[in-house]
């Protein structure tokens, strides 16, 4: 059973910022929902409520950053990347200011429906020159992502997790900028996953391996820049092809980044991109949505079967048998 950590960001942010007086938190009426409430209560002089006014908040963050502070903007990913896109691009992106945009509720992790599901945030932020894009995939990355972001000279978008977060990676193996985690080796298939999809992928790759397939598996946490030589190495020389898996539209995110790398270097053969297939989603539980939109372990098995050109006879009970533990958040009852 995988260890589950409750609200890892909440307490870590306070500890991490203790010796960093230049770190501020800006919030837009979702303070506890983004686990910034303990920071607010601990450092009230470094916390600024900007209300439901994200466009202005981005400008304030830019101004504070120009004066030497490091604003950590906390709100839902949709409200960072959609509504104030022009402000992020012009006030923060163009001058390359050290603003850290911490976006919560990535993809299908919320039952809040289409308005709250960030299915295009990675694509939108990757489009902005100077922007670094990071995504946390487990409790270890939820906490270590702050060190990675803080070391970046320029703006950073963090696709962050909240609530009950599994610990897939050892606590002493922090996220590193531009370095994928190589989780398994094998020469038949290459699976590249990010965010919460890595846990689903781990279940599927275990089942595939039990059927005799050699599956190399990488977990990616730096979505831009996308220049890790280990990823390029993994994409090359694989027999059946590559599968990407992301909690995001297949347009603009991990799948497109992998596709661009493969075509640039002429490696990797066939590519299947798992993710939202150019569609919006709707409000429902996470497990239901992952299955509906082909983002669960079973979907990865089907993609592997397509590339292998053969049925692998893996059913739900096989996947359940290798189940490594699940997110136990009571999603339907969480505050939005």
């Amino acid at each position, binding site marked *: 059973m995988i260890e589950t950590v409750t609200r890892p960001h909440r307490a870590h942010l306070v500890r991490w910022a203790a010796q960093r*007086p*230049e770190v*501020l938190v800006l919030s837009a009426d979702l303070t506890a929902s983004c686990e910034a409430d303990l920071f607010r209560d601990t*450092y009230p*002089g*470094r916390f*600024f*409520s*900007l*209300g439901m*006014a994200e*466009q*202005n*908040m*981005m*400008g*304030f*963050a*830019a*101004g*504070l*950053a*120009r*004066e*030497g*502070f*490091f*604003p950590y903007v906390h709100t839902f990913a949709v409200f960072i990347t959609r509504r104030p896109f*022009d*402000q992020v691009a*012009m*006030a923060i992106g*163009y*001058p*390359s200011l050290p603003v850290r945009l911490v976006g919560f509720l990535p993809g299908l992790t919320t039952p809040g429906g289409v308005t709250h599901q960030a299915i295009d945030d990675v694509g939108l932020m990757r489009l902005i*020159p*100077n922007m670094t894009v990071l995504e946390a995939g487990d409790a270890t990355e939820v906490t270590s992502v702050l060190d990675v972001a803080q070391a*970046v*000279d*320029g703006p950073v978008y963090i696709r962050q997790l909240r609530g009950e977060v599994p610990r897939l990676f050892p606590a002493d193996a922090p996220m590193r900028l531009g370095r994928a985690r190589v989780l398994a080796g094998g020469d038949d298939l290459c699976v590249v996953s990010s965010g919460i999809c890595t846990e689903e992928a781990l279940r599927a790759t275990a089942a595939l391996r039990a059927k005799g397939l050699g599956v190399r598996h990488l977990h990616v946490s730096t979505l831009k820049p996308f220049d890790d030589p280990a990823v390029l190495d993994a994409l090359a020389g694989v027999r059946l092809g590559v599968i990407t898996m992301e909690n995001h539209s297949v347009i603009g995110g991990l799948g497109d980044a992998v596709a661009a790398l493969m075509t640039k270097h002429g490696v990797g053969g066939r590519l299947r991109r798992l993710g939202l297939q150019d569609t919006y989603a709707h409000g429902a539980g996470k497990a239901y949505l992952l299955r509906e939109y082909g983002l669960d372990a079973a979907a990865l098995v089907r993609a592997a079967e397509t590339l292998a050109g053969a049925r692998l006879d893996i059913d739900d009970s096989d996947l359940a048998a290798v189940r490594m533990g699940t997110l136990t958040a009571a999603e339907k009852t969480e505050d939005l």
Partner: protein
Amino acid sequence: MASLPTAAVKHTSPETMPPATAPATAQAGHAATRTAGATAADVRRVADAVRRRVLDYTLQNNGGYLSQACSSAELLATLYLRVLRLGPSTAPLVPRPFAGVPGAGNPEAFTGADYNGPRDPALDRFIFSPVHYALVLYSLLIELGRLGPDGLEAFNQDGSTVELIGAEHSPGHEVTAGSLGQALSQAGGIALARRLKGERGRVWVFMSDGELQEGQTWEAFAALAHHRIGNLGVYIDANAQQCDGAMADTMTIEPLAGRLRAFGAEVHEVDGHDSDALAAPAADFGGGDRPLAVIARTDPCRGVELMRARAPRLHYLRFKSDAELQAYAALLATLDAEARA
């Protein structure tokens, strides 16, 4: 309260900063400093010269943002001569060429804020929001000796920073504000940061009235009031014009004074061509707990009566015929002769 992030803040030699003393302009024959006790007559002389220079370049380019010079010449001249506490320019008289966009890989990138003097805790900052007024600002910087007399040779030329619509690398500019309505929020962040650092200098924002149509502007005023930001003042060129024509026909923002007061600002409504009236609200501003908003009611044809025939489309002047161009050229000749007399 937050401590000063000393290591992170890049200041420009504050210890050796002299008080605000800009170099006098030998060409224009007047002192370009607030502390020199500039008067309304000084402002008028500078404002008239700015109008002439903008008209000249409008003729040379067969078009330009002339009405903006007509409405804002006294306002911007008053800010630089009588309101802003600025040090002398630390920028070259000849504008630098574009050094590439900012980014981690480009240490050569710069802003044009150094035309407004060095950063210093005691000095003011100037944030220029409606950057299609850039030619007005460049012309003013020339009259004040902050930009060389030939500074406009690079105006609207490829590879130049003296752009038609300014960005943060353009002389006198500090932020990239061309997507209108965004600069006030950035100035708010700067003002908040300066308060956190205990700096006495104030932050001044020059805005156009059309920007009050953007929702973000009202978000910003709400935030300024909520956070009791009393070191930020806004001057609004209320010329009642925008690209489509009269603001009253496009999307009214009136009653502007009442709206701004309701949002928590200290509001003054003045004749935007009266330098004394413009300067008065700024005297001793900075110690309170709410932002200042000065609505400068202005005439977009002031000094160029010919343009009135084009109302209500005054946003960008493009000559429709050679005869029209000749009429404006004749006006410039007359104005130049008057100035020499």
